[in-house]
């Protein structure tokens, strides 16, 4: 299944150029529109709270330490899931990239596993592994796993054969080939997978928390909804957005640092 996968010529660099002043303007316009709708539509606050109401709720939740606690829980789940999912995917992806036999052995299961909607088996995982952090970390890891795996396979397969020849003519060891050739050569594609994985991991954590948890931003959404504290739901959702953006930003920053050699002059 991975045989026909061609590496992209260059990962998209769109993220590099994001956030000029136009982004600030459009953000202000969106908040203004939100304000106008909430003021003139006559919708009650438990349906659509006004921006300032959400802002006040945000400061309250921040001040009493609640928001930070739940954010910390979700963030740990996201990071642990991302880390374990990535480690497993890179290891398995490397083995698949290097061995056709191994690929034939595991590829059918991997493809079939992608037919399982993780969101649908999240309740099962929570039943099996309890409402604590572990079940969420597992969901994150499962969601992150496949895109990182595919990118690892593509990245490692795309290492140019002449460079392998060079390393062999210099009698490089297996470890030297991995460290000085395959890792740096596959890094652009691998980081592309990590970028996707980072945002997916946030989704995984929230899904797990919505299904059953006693902490975390997803839990916060659930309880606030039960109390018709819609402003708090907004606060939790906005925090999640910030979390995902921050993670994406971290990966984009890593790309900028590690891949300066392929920066395109425009």
């Amino acid at each position, binding site marked *: 299944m991975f045989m026909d996968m061609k590496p992209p010529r260059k990962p998209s660099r769109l993220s590099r150029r994001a956030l000029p002043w136009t982004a600030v303007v459009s953000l202000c316009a969106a908040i203004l529109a939100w304000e106008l709708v909430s003021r003139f539509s006559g919708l009650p606050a438990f349906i659509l709270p006004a921006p300032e109401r959400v802002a006040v709720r945000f400061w309250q939740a921040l001040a009493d330490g609640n928001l930070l606690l739940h954010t910390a829980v979700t963030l740990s789940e996201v990071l642990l899931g991302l880390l374990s999912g990535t480690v497993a995917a890179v290891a398995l992806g490397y083995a698949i990239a290097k061995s056709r036999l191994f690929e034939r052995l595991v590829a059918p299961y991997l493809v079939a596993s992608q037919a399982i909607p993780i969101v649908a088996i999240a309740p099962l995982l929570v039943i099996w592994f309890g409402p604590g952090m572990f079940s969420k970390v597992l969901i994150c890891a499962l969601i992150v796993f496949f895109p990182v795996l595919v990118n690892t396979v593509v990245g490692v397969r795309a290492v*140019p054969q*002449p*460079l392998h*020849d*060079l*390393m*062999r*003519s*210099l*009698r*490089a060891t297996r470890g*030297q080939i991995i460290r*000085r*050739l395959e890792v*740096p*050569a596959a*890094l652009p594609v691998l980081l592309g997978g990590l970028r996707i994985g980072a945002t997916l991991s946030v989704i995984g954590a929230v899904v797990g928390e919505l299904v059953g948890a006693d902490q975390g931003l997803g839990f916060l959404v659930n309880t606030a909804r039960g109390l018709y504290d819609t402003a708090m739901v907004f606060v939790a959702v906005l925090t999640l957005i910030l979390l995902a953006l921050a993670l994406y930003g971290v990966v984009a920053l890593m790309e900028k640092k590690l*891949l300066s*050699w*392929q920066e395109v002059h425009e």
Partner: protein
Amino acid sequence: MSDPILTVRGLSVTFPDNNGGLEALDAASFAVRPQEFVCVLGPSGSGKSTLLRILAGLLAPTSGSFTFAGGVPRIGMVFQQSNLMPWRTALENITLPLELQGMEGNTARIKAQEMIELVGLQGFESNWPRDLSGGMAQRVAIARALVHDPDILLLDEPFGSLDALTRERMWSELSRIWQARRKTVLMVTHSIGEALFLADRVLVLTQRPGRIKLDLAVDLPRPRADEMRYTAHFGKLARKLKEAIE
């Protein structure tokens, strides 16, 4: 005359295909003496690159053998394309063979810097390969092949991807570098002019399966200048090679 550094005996290669195998090289035998510059000349499909890949340890021969005096040799190889690692600067590309030998970073950089000067790339040490011209990239590749003081230099049509003017300039460069370093060189090419300008000896391979048809000593004086290519003797040798190829 000194003992050969490389002895090749009856080297044959057959690539498996659907009808009985494709014979690329047929019982090639020759010897190379230390500090000798030998060119292997042949049309495409004569198995000359295959020969080089066997000697570099990248391919196993179907039959026959080769021995290097003094056991497993250190090899410096230059490929048709510069084959630089795009994530390493020019200097870092040159330090690679030293790193693989476990040399400490600073010492490696100092040695690489000497190579930069040998190939005339001062000022380009920290350039990325994408910012180097074809000729410059191939100089870096030559520096990388020389930096770890190899026992033999294997050059696989190293100037094949360069334009004609750059290629001829690189001949003089390589000739100068060879005079300075006195390495044993085995170079594969399909250019008669290139072989005569650079080599002490030219081996001519026939069309597939490659067989050594002629072993010609090039008795042109060194150092060789551009004008030498227009002398009568050069023309005579060129005609001999041309006839052997056809």
